[in-house]
Every structure is written in C-alpha cells, then in structure tokens.
C-alpha cells in the first residue's frame, strides 16, 4: 500500500491535534468549577477503535495518557456491539479508571458513517462532589466506598438522550448538584466538539487515508522514541523515597523504582515499594502508568505532541496489591503519592543522565478551606496550589515558586480571590530566603504564606512530603525547608502538620511553607557574581 504523503501526514496529524485543542477550549470556557478552569484538573484524548491514543490535550502535565488505561479497560468490560451513535459512557471506578473517584471519565464512541465505531473520544475531569464521606477532600478513608458514589462505566447518555433516572441518582448523591450539572454539560459539549471535528477530518480525506495516516503517525512517533532512547545509557538503576504516611497511622511509606533501559525498552518497575496501605494513598495502576509516561515524555519527546507510538517502548510494572497497583477495596483518594513519586525516575537516572534536574520541592503543598463566609453567610470551598522551588541542573539555578513539575500549568489562587470568597485574611506572602538548596547552581526558592481567619473555617493542609527532604548531586544540597503547615503559630496550641484537617476559629492563623529545590555541585564553586546577586536580593542571607 502506498504511504501517505508527507504533507497529508502533517495535515491530518495537525487536524487531530487541533480537534483535541478545540475540545480543551470548549471545556475550559464552559466549565463551572475552578478545579477544571483554574487547576486544569482534566485530560482529553482521541483514540482509534483499538483504543490507541491519536491525539490529546492535557490540562495538567501528568494527565498525558491518563485516559488510555481507562479506555483500554472499558473496551474489555463493555459490550461494544451495544454502543450506539450519540452514546456517552461514564466511569469513575478508580481501579478501571486511572484516578480517584472524584474524577469522572466521559467516553463517546464516534461512528463516522453510522455503521461501526471508528474512533473514541474521552474527557476526564475533577467533579466537585460525588458524595464522598467529607466535603472538599477525603484524607483518611479506608476503603473505596467512603470516597463517593461509583459509576462503573455505564451509559449516562443513550443515543443523545440523557438517562434521567441515572442522573437523579447522581445529583441526589452530590452535595453540589448545580456544579455537577454545569461541569457535566461542559464535558458533553467538549465531546460533541470533538465529534464534529473528527467527522470533518474523515469527510475531507476519507476513512482509508485517515486510518493509514494514523498508522504512519504511530510508526513515526515510535521511531522518534527509539531514537531518543538510543541517546540514553543502557543498564539498570534504582531509587527510593518516602511518603509521609497513609493518613491513618504515622508510619512512613516506602516508594521505589527500578529503571531498566535497553535499545527498545524503558522499564519502570515499582514492585520494591510498600504493599497496599490502609489509608487513601494507594495508587491505581492506571495512575502509575500515566505518572511514568509523564517523566518518560520529558526524557524522550518533551517538545512534540505525543501519541500511542511515543509510549510503545515504555513498560510499567507494579503487581496487584502493591502501593502502585491498588485493588478493590483499597482507598485511593489522595493523588499526592503520584506527585511525591513523580521524580523517582529522575533520582534513579540523574547520576548517569547529565541533563536531568535535581529534586524539586517534591510535593504540591497547597491547602483548601471550607466554611461559611463571614459577610454573606454563603458556603464556600476554595483551594490554593502553592509554588515550590525546582531543582538546579548542571547548567543553571532551579526555578523559584513554580507549581510542582507534574502540575506545571496550574496557577496559584490570587489573594484577592481567597479573601473575597473565603474567610482567609492574608498577612504575608513571601519567598523564603535560604530555602533554595545550596550548590554550584542553587535550587529555586519556596514560599511562605500567613493567613488569619476572619470567621470559623475548616482548613485542609495538603502535603505528603513534610517529614523528609529531597536530593542533590555532586555536593549540591536539598532544601532545608520542608513542605508543611503550622497551625496557630506562636501560641501554646501551635502545631506542625503535613496532610491534616482542622477547624480554626476567628482570629486564629496558619502559616503555609513550601520547600525549595535541591542544588547541584559543590557550593564553594558557585560563581561569586551570582552569589553576590543572591545576597543583594535577599534570596540568600549571610550566616555565621
């Protein structure tokens, strides 16, 4: 068979990417909850009839490929012959999906000419409330049934018509039915946009040309991944790190990876990690795969869009029952495991791959606040994702106050929004001097934020890396500041916490700290001009 021309290949792949991009813009413009439009907690993908990803538009960095596993399981569990044009399937069962129960995946089959399924569209987004045991976030569940109502891949829309019965069950199980309705509408609009785009592509080029182009595109990307792989050293390396605890006991939890690189494969094996724990920090296997995919993408194809072909060399191993492969009824609500474990691959490879950065602040040290507004009496749920310092490389200092690398597109929440919507009066927001790990190149700086309550407020501190520090190389040091929160500072009731939930009264305060990144190289070799500049700008203080 004749190959697709280079121009058609570029045009068709460009049109698929544009379709995913148009889906993303539809979702963001019409979404209701800030977790979608501000925190960008969503993933969008287009796959062929075998479930192989053709194009995607991730909101957050680590959501690349996040729908692939879910779609693969749906293809196994569903009777595909029963699917009809206009159907939308909904799934939030964590073990089949790749995320916690608040992340609902909507999938629709695309029938180009009404005969058979030609493509699949998926959009997954965080819903504000699906009836979990606590409002806002769940930090101490011990099984799946405390984490929300389960929707195990059923048709919520049948041939274009919403299943009203099912919908009633859903909305009556949510504390925020209005928000759910808005976000569901936005997700469906996103799927419909994708469907329209796909139909345009197929009508323009015809089925056989498009399908041939997709195969060529996979092959092209696979070759690129192999070429990138050939630049990496061959062998096996391992690394381990610690997660604070599981939210039930105080014990630290071991996370470990063994990375093996051959000419054709990149294997990330997580089996040396702890087994399943009681609290909600277990990871779904799908989540583990997308976490590994994200770092693999940085290693092999960071600047070009990816598809199924890019990830063919990647194998992710985690046996059922491991921390990284949760099985029923393990609690899986807290995705922080995915953040803290994110740089394990870097830790394993940084000694042998000289362009990898040292550890970042390793966590997303934000917070949520739930309560009734002191002026209006309206209930509120707000959140803020705090920036951390990133690791230095062998050629430059680490970046300061950026979001965790696995969520690098997310923005923090403006003070003016937090003060307007919630009872959070800010007293300080500042970079923390000396929080960047020292080295010839130093790590980026972390952030300190002091907030006092102008009304009774339940505060949820979100971090799972508050007990241990990161890592640098060749004399570079990790940040001395750890991610943590201090409740009621400078009072007899002062308390230092990691992931924690407590109600503060009017006048009480918290201070949130985020870690800096690690430095690289011998600090004595630091360029004097850079050092002087750091001191003049108060990023580094002169100490004894």
């Amino acid at each position, binding site marked *: 068979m004749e190959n697709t021309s280079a121009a058609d290949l570029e045009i068709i792949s*460009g049109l698929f990417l544009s379709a995913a991009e148009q889906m993303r813009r539809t979702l963001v413009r*019409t979404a209701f909850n800030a977790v979608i439009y501000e925190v960008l907690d969503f993933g969008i993908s287009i796959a062929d009839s075998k479930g192989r990803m053709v194009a995607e538009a991730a909101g957050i960095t680590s959501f690349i490929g996040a729908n692939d596993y879910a779609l693969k399981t749906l293809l196994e569990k569903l009777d595909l012959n029963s699917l009809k044009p206009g159907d939308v399937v909904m799934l939030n069962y964590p073990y089949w999906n790749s995320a916690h129960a608040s992340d609902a995946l909507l999938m629709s089959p695309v029938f180009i000419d009404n005969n058979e399924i030609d493509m699949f569209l998926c959009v997954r987004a965080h819903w504000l409330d699906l009836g979990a045991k606590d409002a806002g976030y769940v930090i101490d569940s011990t099984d799946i049934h405390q984490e929300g109502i389960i929707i195990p891949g059923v048709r919520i829309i049948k041939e274009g018509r919403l299943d009203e019965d099912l919908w009633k069950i859903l909305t009556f199980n949510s504390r925020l039915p209005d928000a759910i309705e808005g976000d569901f509408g936005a997700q469906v609009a996103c799927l419909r946009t994708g469907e329209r785009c796909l139909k345009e592509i197929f009508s323009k080029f015809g089925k056989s040309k498009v399908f041939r182009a997709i195969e060529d595109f996979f092959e092209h990307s696979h070759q690129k991944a192999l070429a990138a792989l050939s630049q990496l050293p061959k062998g096996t390396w391992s690394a381990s790190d610690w997660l604070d605890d599981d939210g039930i006991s105080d014990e630290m939890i071991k996370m470990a990876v063994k990375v093996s690189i051959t000419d054709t494969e990149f294997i990330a094996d997580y089996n040396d990690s702890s087994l399943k724990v009681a609290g909600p920090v277990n990871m779904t296997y799908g989540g583990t795969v997308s976490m590994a995919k994200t770092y693999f993408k*940085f290693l092999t194809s960071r600047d070009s869009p990816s598809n199924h072909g890019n990830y063919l060399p990647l194998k992710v191993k985690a046996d059922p029952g491991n921390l990284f492969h949760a099985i029923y009824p393990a609690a899986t609500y807290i995705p922080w495991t995915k953040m803290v474990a994110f740089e394990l691959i870097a830790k394993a490879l940084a000694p042998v791959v000289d362009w*990898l950065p040292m550890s970042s602040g390793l966590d997303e040290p934000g917070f949520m606040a739930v309560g009734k507004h002191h002026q209006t009496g309206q209930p509120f749920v707000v959140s803020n994702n705090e920036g951390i310092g990133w690791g230095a490389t062998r050629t430059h200092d680490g970046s300061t106050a950026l979001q965790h690398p696995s969520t690098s*597109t997310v923005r923090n929440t403006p*003070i003016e929004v937090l003060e307007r919507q919630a009872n959070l009066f800010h007293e300080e*927001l*500042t970079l923390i001097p000396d929080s960047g790990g020292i080295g010839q190149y130093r790590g980026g700086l972390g952030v300190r934020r*002091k907030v006092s309550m102008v009304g009774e407020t339940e505060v949820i501190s979100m971090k799972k890396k508050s007990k241990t520090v990161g890592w640098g190389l060749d004399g570079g040091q990790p940040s001395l500041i750890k991610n943590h929160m201090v409740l009621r500072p400078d009072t007899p009731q002062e308390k230092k916490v990691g992931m924690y939930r407590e109600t503060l009264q009017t006048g009480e305060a918290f201070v949130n700290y985020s870690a800096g990144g690690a430095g690289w190289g011998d600090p004595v070799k630091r360029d004097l001009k850079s050092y002087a500049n750091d001191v003049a700008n108060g990023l580094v203080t002169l100490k004894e």
Partner: protein
Amino acid sequence: MDRFKLAIDIGGTFVDIVVFNQQTKVLRHFKVPTTPDNPAQAVLSGVSDIKTQLSQFTDFIHGTTLGLNAILERKGAKVGIITNKGFEDVFLIARGSLNFSDMYRFDFEQPPTLVQRRNIRGVNGRINFLGKEISPLDEKALLASADELINQAGCEAIAINFLHSYANTKHEKLAVKLLNRAFPETAVSAGGLLANEYREYERTSTAVLDAYIKPVLKDYLQNLKLGMRDVGFDGKFYAMNSAGGALTFQMAEAKPISTIFSGPAGGVSGALDLAKIMKKRKLLSIDVGGTSLDANLILDFQPVDVFEAHVDNFPILQPIFDLRTLGAGGGSIAKIDNKLLTVGPKSAGAVPGPACYGRGGNEATLTDAALHLGFITASNFMGGKMEVADTLAKQAIDNNIAKPLKIKTADAAISIIRVLVSKTASAIKEMMLERGLDPRDFSLLAFGGCGPLIGPMLFDELEMAELIVPPLPSVFSALGMMTSDLSFSQSMSVLKKIDMDDFEKIRDKAKHLKVQATNELLEKTREVGDPISSMTARVRFIGQEHTLSVPFLENDTDKSLFARFTELHLNRFGHSFKLEAEVVSLIVKLTLEKEKPDLTLALTSLDQNTGAEYHKMFDDENSCFIETKKLPTFHLEKNKIYEGPFLVYDEGSSMPLLKHQTLVLDKRGIITVRRVEEKNGKY
C-alpha cells in the same frame, strides 16, 4: 493650498510611509529601511523624503513597536515596586505556572525578571475586599521607600500596586500624588488606576510594564515631536493604541501600556473602517507579513477585545484587540522531519530571506514555493524593485523537500502551501471556537504582503463566505491609521449579582464611569464635542471564571441584561443555565470621530501600459501547470465578474485566484472573491 495627512508604521524590516492629499485624494506611499538602534531616525529620514512642504500636513499618525520591543529585549527603565508590607514578592511569585508549550520542561530556566527583588518595598496600609480601609497608608514610609529606590538604587520609574485597589483606589491615588510632588522627574504607574480589575499579580504586572516603558517611550515621542517640528510640521500628533484607535502623543506618554500593540493597530483600524463601509458584521482579518500572521476578529463593527494579554509571559490587564499571532508568513521555512513535512514557525526573515531573494538563503520558504507555482509573479516583485530568481527557489525546494521525498518540485511546492494553509486554518478555528464562533459565518479580509497570496486557499479551507482584499494590501496597516478615530476606554470593577436589589448600583456605576471617562478624554485631548460612547458589561454565571462581553444599554433592567447574557451564552456555547449571573466589570469605550480621508480614488498606479500577460500557474486540482493570465489590479474592470484561475497583482502583493473562484473589483478598489457554486446557489 492642499492639505495632507501623514501615517507612518514601523514594521520589522521596513518603515511604511503613506501621504494622502485630502483635496486631490492622491495617495503616495514608500518604504525606508528601519533603524533598530534609533527608531526615530528612520521615521525622520523617511519624512525628509516627502516632497510636499510639511507645513501643509494637518495630522501625523504613528504606529510604533518601541514599547513592545523594549520589553522583549529588556531595554526598559530600571523599575522599583512599592506595595503592601508583607507582599513584596507578589510580582516575583507571580501565578507559578508554565505555558502549555513549556509544560514538560522539568529543567525549566526562568527568564530574567524585570524588577530586582532588592528594588521592591512594602509599606503599611490596607484596604479590604469591600473597599474598606483597614489601616491608613503610611505616607512617611512611602516617601522614604521611594527616596531609597530613586536616590540610592537609581530607579527611573516606580510601579505601585496595593491589594484590593480595584475596590478602592484611595491609597494608590494618594501614593501617586505624593510621589509626583516629591519626585517630579520620576515616572509613576499604579495598578488599580491603570486596570480597575481584581487579581493582584496581574495588576502589578500591568503597572510594572507601564513603568518599564514609560521613560523610553516618552523620550522617543518627544524626540520625534521635536524632529518633526524642526522640519516644519505644525499639525497634530497621534499614536495608535492597542484597541485599534488613536491617542494624542501626550496621552500615550502618560499611559504607554495602552500603546503596547500600536504596531498592528493600524491594520485593525483599517479593517474596522472597511467592515463599516462594506456593512460586514462578521469579519476575520489576517495581516500576513514575512514572519508572522496576525489574526483579528471584528464583530458587529467592533474589534473583539480581550482584557488580558501577555507580553513575554507578563500579563497586561488592558482592553486590547484580540490579536492572535501565528508563525506563518512569506519567510516560513519548510522542513522534513522524518515522515512529516513541516512549515514554520521558523522564518528566514528579511535576511537572508527566502532562497529566491538570492541573499544567501538556501532553505525552502513559502515565498519560494509560491514563486515556483506562479502564485506570485517574479517580474513585479516589490513593484519590480527587487530581483527574485525562480531557479534559486526551485533549487531550494528540490534540495530540501522534493529530492528527499522523491517527488516533483511542483508537488513539493504545493505541499508546502497546503501544510501552511491547513495549520493556519486550524489555529483560526481554535481561536474562534473559544468564543463560540463559526468561521463559515465570516468574511475573510486578507492584507499584508502575503495576505492575498494565501487568502484564496485559506477562505476555501475554512469554507468562509467570501474573501475581501483591500486596495494596496501591502501597506494597508499604514493606510488604516488614516481612518482611525480617537478612542479611549476605561473599566471599572463591579462584582455584583444581576438582580433587582443590586441593579441600581450597577447602573450608578455605569453612569459614573461614563462621566468620568468623558471628562478625562476631553481634558486630555483638548477636543470639543460629544464622544460616541458604548458600554460593555463582562458577565458570567456565578461560579464561572470566564466572562462574556455583553452590550450594556442605558435603559437596561436586570431582566433585559440577564436575558441578553443567557441568549449569548446559548448562542456561543450551545447551552445555558438557570443560575444566577454577575457583572464582573463595566467597560466604557469613547470614540471621537476624526475626519476620514476618502480613499475611494486613492489608487496609485503602476506603469499604465502594463496589461494582461500570459502566465504559467499551477493547477492543484489536476496537478499540472496551466497557461493563464496575470493582470494588474488597476487593469481590472469595475463590477465585472472574473473567473479563475488567473493571477492578479499590484506592486506589493500577488493573489492566485483558483478554479471555481470569482473575483469582482468594486468602485472603491476593494476586491471580493467568492466560490462559483455559491453564486449559482444564490441566484
């Protein structure tokens, strides 16, 4: 004695100078090279080439990219920030996010900042979210901080921003007053006064950028003014602003951030004027030059505005026309990446330029492909002033594309164009979809040196209703400045629910905003007369982040405004909700109409003897070259329907009319291209 208008537009490589005689309607234009080190020099040297006495000129309208370049090249003033105590790092912490294009760069290196941390000071004083003063501004600390920054640190400009200043500007007004009095030489910019919008980082960034370019722009405009006066110009000075209108030089100096997109503003202003003349409610304009394509939407005779733009990742909260720039232009380079043929965003620029320029470029560009296919004419490139060589174009296409892919030169060339057109079409679709708009409802206006080149394929690809090409497309941006009105906008933060109780308050705010803005405009321009005002409300459902801009009418009630908003939401996004909505802010736009030159007769001519000539052009449908004609634009008969394929050209651009496309030139010199089927479908 005849009276003249002068418009000067500084582009990337050339300065366009357009002179219009208001009596005889004769239009002259020419280009001089830019002088990047001293931009005023090129303008003044261009002015010295004008043959007419400068005293006969009434208006000088200028578009400049100076402020923008100062930011991009980090050549602005040394800026200090004064803000609330405890919040000194808001500008450096920013929003903590990377662009989507950098999202997988876990070794990201932050670019140098605009303000050193040591030049940031915090002072006591706090306003809360309701606009209530919690503690008074510490005036002594403010002056002491400013003294340190100015006299010890050597800051040339001060940016001020205080928390919640959108809700109450009292502290910022006071701070500006105190600083102006104590340090009259130092430029001062304040966030809440520049942008009355919530979000502290974005406001701070707006103030910093304004302060950063203030001294530079002031020097430049004053030099230019002196230089122009020296050579005898005695008229009025106007600078284009980022909303597609004009400002006096004085207003531009006071608020330079409003001129940040002054460069492309002429094109937007011209497009707006053309939309009005041709009564096109929905127009998409593309300005295609050598390196990039600027796309802009005009809806109901207004440029579509955004209220937040970014320069080099720094946000600016200002009403700015929604300009989307793509890396697609005449110099876009084609490359083979394994199995793919990619085009752009890298450009050969002006130096070395496309291979056919013969200046040492050997990569294949869009211009080379177009030349080889006969989509532009070699004999009349830049009005015949520039030699181009088809052999060099062919060689570049062969070496880079055709030989590696083992295809014919012409097939490679048409592939380059198809890839670029498809990519451009996708980007335009994405931009329109964000606003819930469909390109098929729009007319495409194409100008710039390469706009007419890709126009016919692009409007086909997007299935748009028609393609419009203005007279003298390659200098349309400078021409557009001639038709600009004085325009001025101001916004006011509202954040109030649309209901019976609050609506009076919203209306009061609207009245207040209009009066305040009108007084300011008349005072600053020293013009008399009634400006035309239009008010827009930015509305969203409570819980949503993104707003829709809805016209706000004087006799509006809560019900009528809400109904207009929900209808627009339904129209744009296909669904609406039964939820409550709120007005986030109000924007008033004031326009003082200026006398517009009548460009109807303003057609300059090439050599009048040039007529239709035979021309070889590629036919994409049949994949072969065909014998056809090329016609200079002025040679076209008015109101006659011409059918493609053939090539039409003027001294700055060429347009390949395809098969199944028709072309009509109207009495104003405007070309309209349609598809044949459509014509048959209609009548």
